[in-house]
């Protein structure tokens, strides 16, 4: 009986404690607890990528800062200037910045970082492909010599490629992977951090820049949105991004929760095979147009995303210069037109289109909806159900498919979009191009996006009309907070930058 008495005592204690659990687990006044579903591969800038960027921003500064609205402002570089032919970028660096060990941040550090990043084999290493040479002028001046104009260069310098680590650590094997060493606003608290679970960053003493409002930032990893949503409702999580429509609805109704919407990823089929290497029918633009007319975007958005998003026929997002609002509704749901186009292309009896199905991206509902819509115009969509690992191998290495359904982040930098989707590369794996694209790209490449607006819009219009892609909709994501934090969505990123959080009220 002793054991049951102990148990009753334990349960009673737990009940009593529950009342004060709020004070036990509540973060200190100036602490921010962010929940994420992104695991950074390491904290070495070479491994920085996509939604993991906030982990890096806490401990490293970038050369250029990207503001929430996409403008560039000074950070480690106080000024920059492109040469007239856009092939040289001269950077002036701050002279008062030191790494944690007191080593001054200089032009030599920039050169060492960028050369290491280029050769580091990380996901973003390719962003410095156009950097031919990095020339140190003096301690505070460095010039990037480009092999060709690249209007996304400032974007890259405000992203992974611009993160500056202490070169003293480059020779220390894999030290930076778990012990970051930069000039950033915070330092990793090794004693509180459990890699893979939570990372705790404390304010760096003597940070050269403007103080961020929080003394401590904790980024916790979760593998599902249910836990995050519960954490936000109970105030254990201060800020998070919620992507699933059902979870968004569940969190919105809670009285403590504040939300901010952001349209970021678009979902659609990336058709790689425009030359018809795998599926010969796709070589005809009329077939690609027919596919675009065959799908019912409005219903898909309403049923699959519960209306949380905007239908679109273009891959450029509203923040780009290439964006044209009218192209969002260019392809109307018109199955008769789709059948006519297929007939005109000589495929009145239809054809078979085989696509890989990665369940994490293509839900049952989406798979069935696309199959039904395409079947109605005679196109037999066959899903190749493969696990994610094998699918990726077959898509990118074997080039076994003509396209795939993707969720793609919509960068606000036009040239980033062009680089990812139009130029030969992973998402244009067959290296397809055409005369219009060939004609427009050189002028777009050599000018800032605002100056190349007409050409960018012409390019976008051409990609839409020629059916290069089969976009469905831009998805609305929800930035949620427990009411204590104001979150500014970050242009060009699904997750906000570390600088975009402020105490509410």
């Amino acid at each position, binding site marked *: 009986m002793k054991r*049951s008495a102990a148990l009753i005592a334990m349960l009673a204690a737990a009940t009593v*404690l529950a009342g004060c659990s709020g004070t036990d687990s509540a973060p200190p006044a100036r602490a921010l607890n962010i929940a994420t579903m992104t695991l950074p591969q*390491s904290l070495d800038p070479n491994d920085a990528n996509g939604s993991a960027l906030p982990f890096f921003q806490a401990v490293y500064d970038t050369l250029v800062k990207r503001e929430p609205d996409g403008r560039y402002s000074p950070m480690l570089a106080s000024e920059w200037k492109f040469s007239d032919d856009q092939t040289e970028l001269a950077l002036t660096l701050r002279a008062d910045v030191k790494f944690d060990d007191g080593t001054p941040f200089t032009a030599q550090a920039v050169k060492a970082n960028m050369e290491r990043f280029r050769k580091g084999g990380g*996901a973003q290493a390719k962003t410095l492909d156009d950097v031919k040479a990095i020339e140190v002028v003096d301690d505070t001046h460095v010039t990037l010599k480009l092999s060709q104009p690249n209007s996304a260069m400032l974007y890259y310098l405000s992203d992974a490629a611009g993160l500056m680590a202490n070169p003293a650590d480059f020779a220390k094997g894999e030290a930076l992977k778990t012990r970051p060493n930069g000039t950033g606003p915070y330092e990793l608290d090794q004693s509180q951090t459990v*890699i*893979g679970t939570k990372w705790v960053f404390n304010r760096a003493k003597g940070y050269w820049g403007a103080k961020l409002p929080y003394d401590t930032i904790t980024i916790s990893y979760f*593998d*599902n949105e249910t836990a995050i949503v519960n954490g936000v409702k109970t105030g254990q999580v201060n800020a998070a991004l919620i992507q699933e429509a059902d979870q968004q609805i569940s969190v919105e109704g809670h009285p403590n929760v504040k939300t901010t919407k952001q349209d970021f990823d678009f979902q659609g089929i990336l058709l790689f095979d425009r030359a018809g290497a795998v599926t010969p029918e796709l070589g005809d633009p009329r077939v690609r147009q027919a596919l675009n007319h065959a799908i019912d975007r409005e219903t898909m958005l309403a049923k699959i995303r519960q209306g949380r998003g905007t239908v679109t026929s273009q891959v450029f997002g509203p923040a780009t210069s290439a964006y044209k609002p009218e192209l969002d509704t260019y392809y109307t749901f018109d199955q008769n037109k789709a059948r006519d186009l297929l007939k005109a292309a000589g495929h009145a009896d239809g054809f078979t289109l085989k696509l890989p199905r990665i369940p994490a991206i293509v839900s049952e509902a989406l798979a069935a909806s696309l199959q039904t819509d395409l079947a109605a115009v005679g196109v037999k969509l066959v899903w190749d159900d493969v*696990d994610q690992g*094998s699918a990726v191998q077959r898509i990118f290495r074997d080039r076994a498919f003509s396209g795939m359904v993707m969720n793609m982040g919509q960068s606000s930098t036009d040239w980033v979009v062009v680089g990812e989707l139009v130029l030969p590369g992973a998402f244009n794996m067959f290296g397809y191009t055409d005369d219009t694209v060939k004609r427009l790209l050189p002028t777009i490449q050599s000018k800032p996006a605002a100056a190349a607006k007409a050409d960018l819009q012409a390019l976008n219009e051409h990609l839409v009309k020629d059916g290069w892609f089969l976009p469905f909709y831009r998805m609305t994501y929800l930035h949620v907070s427990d009411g204590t934090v104001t979150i500014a969505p970050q242009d060009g990123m699904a997750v906000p930058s570390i600088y975009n959080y402020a105490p509410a009220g």
Partner: protein
Amino acid sequence: MLSFILRRIAAGVALLFVISLLSYTLLSIPHIDVGRQLLGQGAPQDLVDAKNAALGLDRPAMVQYLDWLANAVRGDFGTSWFTSENVLRAIANRLPVTLSLMIGVTLVTAVLSFLLGVWAGVRRGAVDRFVQVFAVVGYALPGFLVTLVIVLVFAVRLGWFPAIGYVGPSQSFTGWLSTVTLPIVSLSVGSIAGVAQQVRGSVIDVMRQDYVRTLRARGLPPWRIVFVHVVRNASAPALAVLGMQFVGLLGGAVLVEQIFGLPGIGSMTVTYTTRGDIPIIMALVMFSVIGVILINLVVDVLIGWLNPKARIA
């Protein structure tokens, strides 16, 4: 007894070797393109190939296995491909979370299921029917449903307990208790139901034995008959079930850890397995097998201690 334990340990080592070989082979079959997973879908193929080569994944699976085995025998389980964390440290960080749950649930289950089972088996009648209904309902309710309802009611709505997260007992004992209570309750429902049924059945069997009648006839007080003689003899099968439940908890913990956002071994297994992080998965498999071997050994020794006849078998 000592030779029995030694034989079991030797068999366990052999089992570890066989399972490690099988696991590595199975993990190598899907050909998960780790380089592509690490670098993202937009990465150029040559970069992906270079990454795979850097990780040694371009070598035959058997060579990779032997390399892994040679290091593992020396206690070096490497670093995670996906988070660069030391594998042993990663597991050591998460083990206390899952062990808290497993030990907590086993203690709660042991106490409550024995009380319920003995109560039902001895008293029978309405009490028995009540326990039976509880057992059936408890067993039939889907674990995830119980967990979700518990978290929504006691954490989100009433705010009595934290909805997510884990606090180590060394950091704050009260914090630890408040973070593990709801997960333990969620996992215990099905567990108690299963073991209580087993205890009830065994108690009824033992109560029908001749020696119990003899004890009664000799005028021993009923509580003494039940708690000294019946329970001791009825515990062996229940203990076996409890041991199996303990092992099975590792599976049940996956869901509970995910819903409560607990950084334990269960949720870790899911996260790293879907990514194909072989260093972490192999270490998890090895430690799980060691755990299962040890638990079975402890249960067998306990049963032998309770019931000397079992030692012969």
